[in-house]
């Protein structure tokens, strides 16, 4: 075990996968010489060379389209989109092409590719460096979507994503890059896609979260414990395929659930989680399922007052959890 930050864990994950498998390569803007604008690929260019760490032109559709072609021809590309906010030009390639290769060929083709994208707010990134995209892509059949919140999960899920035979959207929360530190097991640590994780056990209520909100919920759980409320925290880790069994199990266990995400409210992932609970655990509910989300505004603004008003934080989570506990 060693303590790492999320960004270190991601870098190590890529390094280890590239060392392990020659077909793995990285393509994206600034990933080569500069090592990535967040230094996620620092050192990899020097180690693996220009054919395996490729500085792409400023063209997102190109990054993804080329990755698709390379995956067709036996490679395992990791395509980096510099900020999740900039993924839109690649929508056609991701949704109409990558997500459908297997289905439209009845399994003849499959694309073992990873699309990495830093997402999320709390970094004064304003409207175009803070967005959440997990609901948009989680909605598309044929894609897998993961969103780790800890260094161990970041490394483990990246490895799983690289080894997965299907296209995986790997969402790394930029605020967690250096903020969240944790133990990362040594050796070939792989976290399976599709498995949520109870990060904290409890019995009075459950908080379900991922990404940065996981860290905030764990903090809120500590404060709740001091007030005699035992909160369970379930880290989804994978958005799609979502771990339905884990969600249902915790809902049945506590009967009170709060889903937290910073994404806009309408048709966000919380809505899906709530539907799953309603369909499968209605008889065990002791209160309506609640959610705490970002508001339905186009993105979080630059000014800190507005950004703070947008983002869920520990205090807001605590207040909502107490409301749930008292129901």
């Amino acid at each position, binding site marked *: 075990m060693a303590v790492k930050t999320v*960004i270190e864990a991601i870098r190590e994950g890529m390094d280890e996968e590239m060392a392990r498998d020659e077909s793995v390569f990285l393509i994206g803007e600034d990933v080569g010489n500069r090592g990535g604008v*967040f*230094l996620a690929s620092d050192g990899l260019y020097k180690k693996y060379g220009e054919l395996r760490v490729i500085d792409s032109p400023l063209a997102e559709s190109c990054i993804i389209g080329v990755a698709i072609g390379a995956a067709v021809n036996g490679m395992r590309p990791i395509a980096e989109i510099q900020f999740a906010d900039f993924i839109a030009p690649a929508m056609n390639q991701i949704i109409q092409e990558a997500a459908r290769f297997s289905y439209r060929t009845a399994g003849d083709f499959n694309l073992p590719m990873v699309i990495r994208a830093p997402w999320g707010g709390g*970094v*004064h*990134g304003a409207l175009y*460096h803070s967005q959440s995209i997990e609901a948009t892509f989680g909605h598309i059949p044929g894609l897998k979507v993961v969103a780790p919140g800890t260094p161990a999960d970041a490394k483990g899920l990246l490895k799983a994503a690289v080894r997965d035979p299907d296209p995986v959207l790997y969402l790394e929360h*930029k*605020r967690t*890059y*250096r*903020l969240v530190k944790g133990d990362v097991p040594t050796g070939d640590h792989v976290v399976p896609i599709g498995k949520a994780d109870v990060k904290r056990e409890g019995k*009075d209520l459950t908080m379900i979260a991922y990404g940065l909100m996981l860290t905030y919920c764990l903090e809120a759980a500590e404060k709740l414990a001091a007030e005699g409320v035992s909160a369970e925290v379930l880290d989804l880790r994978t958005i799609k395929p979502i771990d339905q069994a884990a969600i249902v199990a915790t809902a049945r266990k506590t*009967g009170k659930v709060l889903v937290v995400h910073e994404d806009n*409210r309408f048709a966000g992932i919380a809505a899906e989680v709530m539907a799953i609970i309603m369909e499968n655990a*209605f*008889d*065990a*509910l*002791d*209160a*309506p399922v*609640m*959610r*705490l*989300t*970002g*508001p339905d505004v186009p993105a979080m603004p630059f000014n*800190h*007052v507005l950004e*703070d*008003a947008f*983002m*869920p*934080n520990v*205090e*807001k989570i605590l*207040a*909502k959890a107490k*409301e749930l506990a*008292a*129901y």
Partner: protein
Amino acid sequence: MASVKMPQLGESITEGTIGKWLKQPGDQVKKYEGLVEIITDKVNAEVPAPLAGILKEIKVKEGTTVTVGTEIAVIEESMPATAAPTRPAPTATTEAVPSTPVGEGQGGGATTRLSPAVRALIEEHRITDAELSRIEGSGIGGRISKKDVEDFVAKRAQPATANGEQRQTAASLAATPAATPGTTIPLSPMRRAIATNMLKSKQTIPHAWTVAEVDMTNVVRFRQKAKDSFKLREGIDLTFVPIIVKAVVEGLKAVPVLNASWSEQGVVLHQDINIGVAVSVDDGLIVPVVHQADRMSISGLAKAIDDLAKRARAGKLGIPDVQGGTFTVNNPGTFGTILSYSIIAPPQAGILAMDAIVKRPVVVEGDAIAVRSMMNLCLSFDHRVLDGVSAARFLQGVRRWLEGFSEQVPLY
């Protein structure tokens, strides 16, 4: 004095290292003049002074790493008029998205609203309506939560009768011989005796049946308040039974024809009021008698009934204990039934069943609706001896006595 803090030099940066101080304490500093060089793992930058003045104190030495927001220096402002504009104090964190009020609050209101989890627990633990009505809800608006039920079940499981509720001990329930489908249970003497009596009663006495609904709220409230001190003083529980029996006694005084027996010679009105109180035992029912119940206070009745019940379950009743009853009171409400048709014990003329006390919405004075604790009194009577009118008057008397219950009623 103005505080200089470690700035956040880039997205996701959480800390920085002091590289080199460009000014020393005592130096004049112009606004925007280079003050210090900061090193982070993404960006190295020269940080300008936020205001003009004299650098008073360096708080963090070169080479030290501190988190963003830590105070690194203090500058004494020299031109107060153009002091660095202070940032507005962060507004109190406003509510994150207000969740639709529709979802909340609904759960409050009547304590009869039960969540699916609570309903499941009720079923699993066989909680009666009567018991449910006694559970205090700790949720919004008095809502009974899962926790409330779980706590109740834990308390109920304790063998000592901590509550003075009218409840069957778990023991007596479990004592019922296990009925295995496909087998024949041999008849015990008690079962034979009950069978004979019941048959005889039904064959010889024309049963009529009538019900009165009683608002027990006052009694319930009184008992809630008094039970603990009663228990302390008397060493036994104050259940509803002695209170009901007292009411029945008053009722019988007013309508003596129910405290009577049929004979070919005429209706025999009994002198004493001996109330039989049905007790459930291992393999059946036994009805010990409280003799001259009309001479007892509620407390006295409580003691007598408690003593008889204990001896009945222990199998230690004597013949006089079960003879001479003139009227019987039955308590099926422990099992949650709301209406019961009891069979008269010959040669008596009537039997009163007190069913479960259930919280119901009822119309009260002024046509308002209130939640009250309601109980049905079901009277089976010998129609040879009396008619419906007398039966109704008797019930009315009992009812009024109970509904008018207050602290004024003496326990002793």
